[in-house]
C-alpha cells in the first residue's frame, strides 16, 4: 500500500468519516486487518446501504450526508468506550460513515466488531449500530431522480 492511501485510511480510522461512499477497497482494508488478531473468533459487520425508495412516485437516486465532524469524533469515541465496557469479549470496533453524496446501492455506513466469540461480536455490533443512529450528529437528505430533495429525520 502506498503512503498516500495509507494516510487516507489513517484519517478515516481516526475521524470515522469519509467523503463519498464506503467503497469495496475501504472495506477490504478493514477486513484484511482482521486476521492479525488471532485471539478473535468472530467478526460481525454491518453495512448500511442507500435504498432506491420510491416516495410519492419519485425514486431516490442518492442521499447527501452532512456531519458535525468534531462532534462525530467525540461521540464515536464514546460509543467505542461504551461497547468495550459492556462487552468484555470485544477486541476492536471500526466505524466508517459517509459524508456528501452516496448513490442508491452504495454503502454509507460500515461497522466491524471483532470479539473472541460470536455472541458478543454480533450483539456488540448491533448495539453499536443503534448507538450510531442515536448519537452521531449526521443529517441526510434524499435526492430524487428529478433532483428535488427531502430531509430525512
Amino acid at each position: 500500500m502506498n503512503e498516500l492511501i495509507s494516510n487516507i485510511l489513517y484519517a478515516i480510522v481516526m475521524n470515522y468519516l469519509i467523503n463519498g461512499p464506503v467503497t469495496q477497497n475501504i472495506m477490504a482494508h478493514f477486513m484484511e486487518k482482521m486476521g492479525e488478531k488471532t485471539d478473535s473468533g468472530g467478526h460481525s459487520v454491518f453495512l448500511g446501504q442507500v435504498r432506491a425508495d420510491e416516495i410519492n412516485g419519485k425514486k431516490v437516486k442518492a442521499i447527501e450526508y452532512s456531519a458535525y465532524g468534531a462532534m462525530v469524533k467525540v461521540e464515536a469515541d464514546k460509543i467505542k468506550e461504551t461497547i468495550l465496557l459492556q462487552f468484555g469479549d470485544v477486541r476492536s470496533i471500526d466505524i466508517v460513515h459517509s459524508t456528501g453524496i452516496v448513490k442508491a446501492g452504495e454503502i454509507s455506513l460500515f461497522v466491524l466488531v471483532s470479539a473472541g466469540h460470536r455472541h458478543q461480536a454480533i450483539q456488540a455490533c448491533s448495539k453499536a449500530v443503534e448507538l450510531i443512529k442515536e448519537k452521531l450528529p449526521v443529517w441526510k437528505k434524499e435526492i430524487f431522480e428529478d433532483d428535488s430533495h427531502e430531509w430525512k429525520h
Partner: protein
Amino acid sequence: MEIKVLFFGVLAEVTGTNCKHYREVRSIGDLKHRIQDDFPEVVHYNYRFSLNDEIINNDPKLNDGDEVALMPPFAGG
C-alpha cells in the same frame, strides 16, 4: 466576546448559512432569541443545541471562543 454558531441539516438550508458569528451574547437562551431575530423560520424546526461538541439541556453561560451548533434530529446510517 465572540462565539461561533453552526447550522446543520435542514437548518443550514433554511437559514442559507453553515456558520455565523455572534458578539456579546451571554447565554444559550440569549443566543436563541438573537438567532430567531435573524432567521425567524428556525422556530418551525425541531433542534437541540450543542456547546463545544457536547449536547446541552440547560442554559449555560457562553464564553469567548465558544462553538455552538443548532442540530436537527440526527439521521445517520
